């Protein structure tokens, strides 16, 4: 099986999520190859899990004031702050039959590719069920998976340069809980590539390491989106990801 790899690109939150869904459809009907994509969010954005309430989780007004995007994902999991300069996101979209049937086992396989990528950068890391990757006891990557029509979608984020203060301003934690103590507590539990490696690792280094870790031992070719995929993605932006009915559904 030959994979398509789409190199690091950047899009709005709604288009990023729409591309994932559009490509799932095209992989499901056999019109697109299994795909690995790397992307950033421009502007910065917050994504929330399928089962979350946007207004409960996110300071929507602040998000708008800062010019940031917000979007509901098709996957479960928690709210994520996608800093335009502080993380790289990936998606793996492929027939589910090539992965273990068990959810945790399949997380383990794909998260293993992230662990390999971090190893490339000299960072030792491990998969921590259900959906995290940790290094020296701190979270460096969060992941989420869904399966539909025989296709597995797993997307996740690799923290490159963590801005805890902005994250806390955007994600709604009761105001009385936002103390210096809590921010430093999160810093104890979450880390980033820059926290570990300092300025010696550039974003390009991270992107290259991810490509290597994800493609190791696979047949693959670099590719772009087809016209049909992009047309469908833009339809999905209009139909779903830009809609109040979707983003404020719960």
């Amino acid at each position, binding site marked *: 099986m030959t994979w398509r790899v789409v190199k690091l690109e950047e899009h709005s939150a709604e288009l990023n999520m729409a591309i994932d869904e559009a490509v799932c459809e095209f992989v499901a009907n056999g019109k697109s190859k299994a795909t690995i994509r790397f992307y950033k969010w421009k502007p910065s954005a917050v994504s929330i*899990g*399928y*089962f*979350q*309430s946007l207004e*409960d989780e996110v300071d929507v007004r602040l998000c708008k004031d800062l010019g940031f995007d917000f979007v509901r994902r*098709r*996957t*479960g*999991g*928690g*709210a994520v702050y996608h800093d335009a300069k502080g993380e790289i996101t990936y998606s793996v979209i492929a027939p589910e039959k090539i992965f273990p049937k068990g*959810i*945790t086992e399949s997380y383990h396989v794909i998260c293993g590719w992230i662990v390999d990528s971090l190893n490339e950068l000299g960072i030792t890391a491990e998969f921590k069920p*259900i*959906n995290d990757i940790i290094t020296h006891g701190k979270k460096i990557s969060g992941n*989420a*998976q*869904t*399966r*539909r029509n025989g296709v597995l979608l797993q997307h996740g984020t690799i923290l490159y340069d963590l801005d805890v203060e902005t994250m806390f301003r955007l994600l709604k934690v009761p105001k009385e809980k936002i103390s210096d103590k809590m921010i430093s507590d999160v810093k104890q539990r979450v880390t980033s590539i820059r926290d570990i490696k300092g300025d010696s690792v550039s974003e390009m280094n991270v992107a290259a390491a991810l490509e290597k870790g994800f493609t190791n031992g696979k047949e693959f070719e670099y590719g772009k989106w087809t016209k049909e995929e992009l047309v469908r993605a833009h339809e999905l932006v209009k139909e779903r990801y830009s809609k109040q009915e979707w983003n404020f559904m*719960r």
Partner: protein
Amino acid sequence: MKGYAIEKVENGKLVKIKVDFDERINSIQILGDFFLHPEESIFEMEKQLKGIPSSQSQESIQLILENYLKTSHAKLIGMTAEAIARTVKKAMNEGVQK
């Protein structure tokens, strides 16, 4: 009356219940950062609890949810029917917002 409760499952995820009820549950939302495959099953799970007597025990709420998950082949990850049922009862018993 409206009720609200939250629980973090040990080694798992968080569930938040928002419920509107009197003698029966009028409406309910099961929110959180857990996983459920397929995702749309959440609406059916909520529908299963709508209209049941508010006095229903935690165990019978759990049974309703477990039966639904079993027959629909939906799968909760990082969450259990037991934790959801416990949080539903907590929302109606201790989490009433006046």
